[in-house]
């Protein structure tokens, strides 16, 4: 199971980064979101995997590691705030710059075509 | 028809009761503490959200409402088994159709309840309520309303319309007295 878990994290990282390397804001935002899922899972796994040992006192005899859970919670919230900001920034970018490119220059291919809206 | 609760501090008595019950259910407890807390919440939340309510008819006949609830629940079980069989059967046997049911209800809440009942029961899904406000001309009043329904397997359109009107719309009219 550990291997499966690690593979999931790996796949999420891969997909997230692949999207991140696209030249437009929306895929980049999707990539960031996916990357943050991966990171949260990773950080969570720092406390190792435990089944049915939720850290609510009195529900079990021994418990999962609660600290990474708290950390991931904080990370999720912060990640949400950041994603929200970057999404809004992407909108602002579209409004200000007329396109959603983040790769320095607009490739010729789409410069000729009219921007789809 | 009554559009507002009798007491200003209790705009939706039945709904407050509902919230109170939900609170006890959520906490899985009927301790005095939770009863107290539930009462406070059941009273305060409707007050907070009061401004978010359009004026809708209130339930005037609760007993009838309860009875109707059980009817609908029964229908749901029966209808679902029917639909399950239809799904398991051959696709070619199905006779899908859109039908338009004229409705006499005038307010959004009863219409919503009607539409929900239709969706949950025999092989029908409410698709839309006509006319759409934005399609009306400036200043035009909403006249006759229709419910657009998709039927999975339509046998007799008239019969279905009658069924819906009698089994679901009539009791609603009575419950809300409108």
């Amino acid at each position, binding site marked *: 199971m550990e291997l499966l878990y690690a593979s999931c994290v790996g796949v999420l990282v891969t997909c997230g980064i692949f999207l991140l390397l696209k030249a437009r804001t929306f895929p980049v935002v999707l990539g960031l979101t996916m990357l943050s899922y991966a990171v949260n899972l990773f950080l969570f796994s720092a406390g190792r995997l435990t089944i049915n040992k*939720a850290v*609510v006192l009195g*529900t079990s005899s021994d418990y999962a590691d609660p600290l990474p859970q708290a950390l991931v919670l904080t990370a999720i919230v912060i990640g949400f705030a950041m994603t929200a900001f970057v999404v809004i920034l992407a909108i602002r970018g579209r409004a200000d710059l007329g396109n959603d490119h983040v790769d320095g220059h607009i490739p010729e291919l789409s410069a000729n075509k009219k921007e789809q809206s | 028809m009554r559009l507002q609760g009798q007491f200003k501090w209790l705009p939706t008595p039945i709904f407050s009761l509902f919230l109170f019950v939900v609170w006890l259910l959520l906490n899985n407890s009927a301790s005095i503490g939770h009863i107290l807390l539930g009462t406070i919440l059941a009273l305060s939340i409707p007050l907070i959200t009061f401004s978010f309510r359009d004026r809708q008819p209130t339930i005037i006949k609760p007993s009838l409402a309860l009875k109707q609830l059980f009817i609908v629940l029964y229908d749901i079980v029966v209808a679902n088994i029917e639909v399950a069989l239809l799904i398991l059967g051959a696709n070619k046997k199905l006779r899908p159709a859109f039908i338009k049911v004229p409705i006499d209800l005038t307010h959004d809440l009863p219409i919503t309840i009607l539409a929900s009942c239709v969706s949950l029961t025999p092989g029908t899904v409410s698709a839309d309520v006509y006319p759409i406000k934005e399609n009306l001309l400036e200043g035009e009043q909403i006249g006759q309303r229709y419910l657009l329904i998709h039927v999975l397997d339509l046998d007799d359109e008239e019969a279905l319309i009658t069924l819906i009107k009698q089994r679901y719309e009539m009791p609603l009219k009575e419950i809300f007295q409108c």
Partner: protein
Amino acid sequence: MLDTVLLIVFSLIGLSIMLNFWRLMKGPSVPDRILALDTMYINVIALIILYSISMGTGLYFEAALLIAMLGFISTVAVCKYLLRGDIIE
């Protein structure tokens, strides 16, 4: 006996989720995909409830409740998007 039943139901729900997933992938239209996703949300609730039963813990009830609430809202949001583009206007 319950264990066997749970295994069967787990498999049924698992199978359902995969069917949903298949529809989600196949589409062909966006509403189809949304429908699949919405169904999947509900099936996941079932999964969590089953899980709670098999583990004998009530700690995941709220997760199920929230999926029910939020799944609905996100379906509504997506539909609103398809209809109007701007979901908060």
